[in-house]
């Protein structure tokens, strides 16, 4: 597997990692291994100047409460509305979903991606599992899927493109700049999904630093 070529530190994409609760350290290890700079997000000021954002696994109810209490909910909602590229895994997927089934009655989400997810849709911990996934366009063979009290995508809109499925149900999908995984690539030891996502972050930054119109309107 090839990693991005070494770059000057300042040229490396800056990824915000939501750190109010959850498997933060695992994501940081993976993101740094594929050449990103990582900033933990606990306050609104931490959101400035990001090239991408990761919403990690954890307990979605706890994360939602803390986003409210730490005052980051609205700034994050605004960043998502601006199209900040965002990778949500497990609880992160729940936070981005349009609809949450089997959540707490008062559980909110950013409603960014047109999916309907059932919390713990695969069952309690005794039903948590590992399996191999075939990911669309990913070289190097199947990807290890680690599903832990995972959310189940029960329905999705036409703008959502499934990238991997399990028993016909999408477990990895994208909608514009948003990538969702029901499983935990950060636990798998396999860097390929993180590498591909971080590599994709270069594009918007390049667009921003080369603003001169070249006639092609």
């Amino acid at each position, binding site marked *: 597997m090839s990693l991005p070529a070494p770059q000057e530190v300042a040229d490396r994409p800056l990824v915000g990692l939501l*750190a*109010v*609760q*959850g*498997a*933060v*350290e*695992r994501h940081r*290890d*993976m993101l740094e*291994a594929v050449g990103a700079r990582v900033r933990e997000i*606990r306050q609104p000021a931490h959101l400035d100047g990001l090239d991408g954002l990761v919403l990690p*696994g*954890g*307990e979605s*109810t*706890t994360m939602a*409460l*803390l986003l409210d*209490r*730490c005052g980051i909910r609205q700034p994050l909602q605004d960043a998502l509305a601006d199209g900040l590229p965002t990778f949500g895994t*497990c*609880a992160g997927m729940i936070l981005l979903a349009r609809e949450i089934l*089997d*959540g*707490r009655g008062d559980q909110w989400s950013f409603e960014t991606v047109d999916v309907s997810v059932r*919390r*713990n849709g695969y069952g*309690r*911990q*005794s*039903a*948590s*599992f*590992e*399996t*191999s996934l075939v990911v669309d366009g990913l070289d190097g*063979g*199947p*990807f*290890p899927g*680690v*599903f*832990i*009290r995972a959310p189940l995508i029960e329905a999705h809109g036409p703008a959502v493109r499934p990238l991997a499925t399990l028993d016909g149900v999408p477990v990895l999908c994208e909608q514009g700049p948003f990538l969702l995984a029901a499983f*935990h690539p950060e*636990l*798998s*030891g*396999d*860097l390929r999904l993180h590498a591909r996502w971080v590599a994709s972050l270069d594009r918007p930054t390049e667009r921003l630093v080369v603003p001169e119109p070249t006639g092609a309107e």
Partner: protein
Amino acid sequence: MSDHSTTQASGGSGSDDGARTGTDLVKRGLAEMLSGGVIMDVVDAEQARVAEDAGAVAVMALERVPADIRADGGVARMSDPEMIEGIQATVTIPVMAKARIGHFAEAQILAALDVDYIDESEVLTPADEAHHIDKWAFTVPFVCGATNLGEALRRISEGAALIRSKGEAGTGNIVEAVRHLRSIRGDIRKLTQADAAEQFEWAKRLSAPLPLVQEVASTGRLPVPLFCAGGIATPADAALVMQLGAEAVFVGSGIFKSDDPARRAAAIVEATTNYADASILAKVSRGLGSAMDGIEIDSLDTRLSDRGW
């Protein structure tokens, strides 16, 4: 990268189409998901609701909180399944429950109830004075207490997927948890400096399996997450143990033995997230009412942390 690598069959290019449950990665993975969170002891569904509303990442179902077990005396056992089911029906977060040390039949019952984690706990009265439960035999993951690195590695060798400090439960006194965390983390730091020959001696001195000692020496961390339990009563206590290297905290008697449990629980949750930000800690520590009554360790008749071998 992954500290699971030595004990985990490498994932990936599997030709198996089936899903594998109860693997090391899946068991330890749930503990990873609880990182940066607070797990709260609850004795009924109503307390479980308060805990979830306050932002708990999981609840620990038990019959009596440690402070009451200490006060009441007698034999402390696994909770009534009806109470555990009531809690499972009330909250959406993971539900843990305690089994007595060595009481594998209690553990089998808890597994049949489909709890998310079993705590083989010194807070309950031990059922076996020589043997802990063979935790590899279960699909459900186990957490165990430890006072030092050797004890932690022995529990991991028996299949524990998460280690917590024992502290001294039910005292509201953080001193023992600090001792245990410092001992575990300090010995890990020293072990990383040991050469190959010295690692044999470490294994002997810790009474721990050599492969686990070698793994810790090379990775600089336990093969499973390390949480803190035992004596946490205030937001500052949570911040202290997080800064000492705990990845999450268990709060037992500290919440529901205080004046204003909902408020204190929420404050400890916020302190655990912002454990290194003193201005936020100052804000959330204000006006919480009285913490639980604390107990001086030297005045104890029974030290729960001495249980386990």
